[in-house]
């Protein structure tokens, strides 16, 4: 019995070790054999990892993907002469999705945090955004700036730029799964305030939403959005060139206007 158990355990460990060694070798040789550009042209599709997140990527009434990022991704794919496919992912797993090649890029209003830039190769920032503090409307006057915030309990999306700001300011907070959950925390009274992207705040709080009673109290910090690719991908340069061109010819601005985002564009 003991011998058999030991034998089986050894077998499993051998298999795991071999798998790991293979993987090390595989990634090296894989990189030199075929560039990311060739890989995508080869299969004919650019798979874009997204989460439903207005106004960047979201579905219209017919279930079609639209939004500022989605429209730009479609245009970029056209220049590469490949199809574009949008795949909804779990935001927490974006790096695994990318490295496991189930998607080819993350293009979803992604804030360029140190965590993101160390795990992916990212494009130049194309868009700027601010982190805003959301509170119940009747309390909004009490929190005009960052110094007035101590004593509030915050909610913020795990790994988001908002969480980074809260850590910097040493404020007490709970991390939740999505920015939408952060808002629900305030509505449910389980948190006093939330820090989310201002673009998101425009779409999700105030009149005509489930959060009519919530409002923006103050702005904390600004951040920049970029598109993430696999490490060493040659698509980064291609996308940067595409951004430069579409800024120059005005198509990017036109697209931004469709979603009322023209103020957020970064013009270099």
């Amino acid at each position, binding site marked *: 019995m003991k011998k*058999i*158990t030991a034998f089986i355990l050894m077998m499993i460990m051998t298999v795991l070790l071999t798998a790991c060694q293979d*993987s090390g070798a595989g990634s090296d040789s894989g990189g030199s054999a075929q560039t990311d550009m060739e890989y995508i042209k080869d299969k004919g599709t650019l*798979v874009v990892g997204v989460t439903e997140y*207005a106004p960047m990527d979201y579905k219209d009434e017919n279930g079609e993907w639209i939004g500022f990022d989605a429209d730009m991704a479609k245009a970029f794919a056209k220049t590469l002469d490949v199809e574009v496919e949008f795949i*909804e992912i*779990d935001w927490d797993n974006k790096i695994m*999705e990318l490295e*496991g090649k189930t998607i080819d890029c993350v293009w979803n209003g992604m804030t360029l945090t140190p965590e993101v830039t160390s795990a992916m190769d990212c494009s130049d920032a194309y868009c700027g955004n601010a982190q805003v503090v959301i509170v119940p409307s009747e309390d909004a006057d009490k929190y005009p700036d960052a110094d007035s915030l101590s004593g509030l309990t915050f909610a913020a999306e795990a790994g988001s730029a908002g969480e980074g700001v809260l850590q910097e300011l040493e404020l007490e907070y709970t991390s939740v799964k999505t920015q939408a959950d952060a808002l629900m925390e305030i509505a449910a009274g389980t948190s006093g305030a939330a820090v989310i992207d201002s673009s998101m705040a425009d779409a999700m709080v105030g009149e005509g*939403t489930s959060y009519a009673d919530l409002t923006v109290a103050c702005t904390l910090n600004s951040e920049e959005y970029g598109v993430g690719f696999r490490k060493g991908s040659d698509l980064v340069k291609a996308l940067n060139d595409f951004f430069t061109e579409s800024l120059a010819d005005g198509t990017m601005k036109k697209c931004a206007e469709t979603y009322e985002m023209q103020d957020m564009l970064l013009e270099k």
Partner: protein
Amino acid sequence: MEQILDQMPIVITSLNIGFIQTLKLFFVTLIGAFPLGLIIAFGSMSRFKPLSYFTKLIVWIIRGTPLMIQLLIIYYFPGLVLHKPVWGGGEAGRFLAAAVSFVLNYSCYFSEIYRGGIQGVPVGQEEAGLVLGMTKNQIFFKVTLLQMIKRIVPPMSNEIITLVKDTSLARIIALQEIIWAGQAFMKGSHGISGAIWPLFFTAIYYLIFNGILTILLGHLEKKLDYFR
């Protein structure tokens, strides 16, 4: 309230699509795990020791780790470590990976229930069959099977109802089941932003479906009540 009524048709349509994914995963899991569980049960009861130890090891690993981790490993491991993304990135691949994880996980739980059911039938039943010149097959199908089914229906019902709710775990690999569909309306799906109620509304789907299952399984249990 008025706003909710306006959003209702869009939300219901979208939740229905999500719920179909939930149902698909539920039924595929049952169809796969019923027979596979029986095979695993026979494996763990095998008199060939290496086979029974190996089967028990697998059952221990699967039952000893969260289904959520199994989903992550089964979906991401091939692409991340082996550089062969066997499942692909699309909805179909995610569904297949989820189905494989669920079938594997649930067949291990089912196997333990089967094992209890088989071992719970008194040895005397098989011996009576043997003495009457019946073959092992005849004994299993004509004598033991129904008694075993009667024993496993109550614990199986529990697992089946748990399975309905467990399907929601598949959204960790972005399978767009009903809770995923409900959450999407917080984030601007179909032009609806910041709506929380669809998420809570999904509970009604689960309740109704589990209600139907409870009635059906109770009916089956009652049907087998004619003998002891």
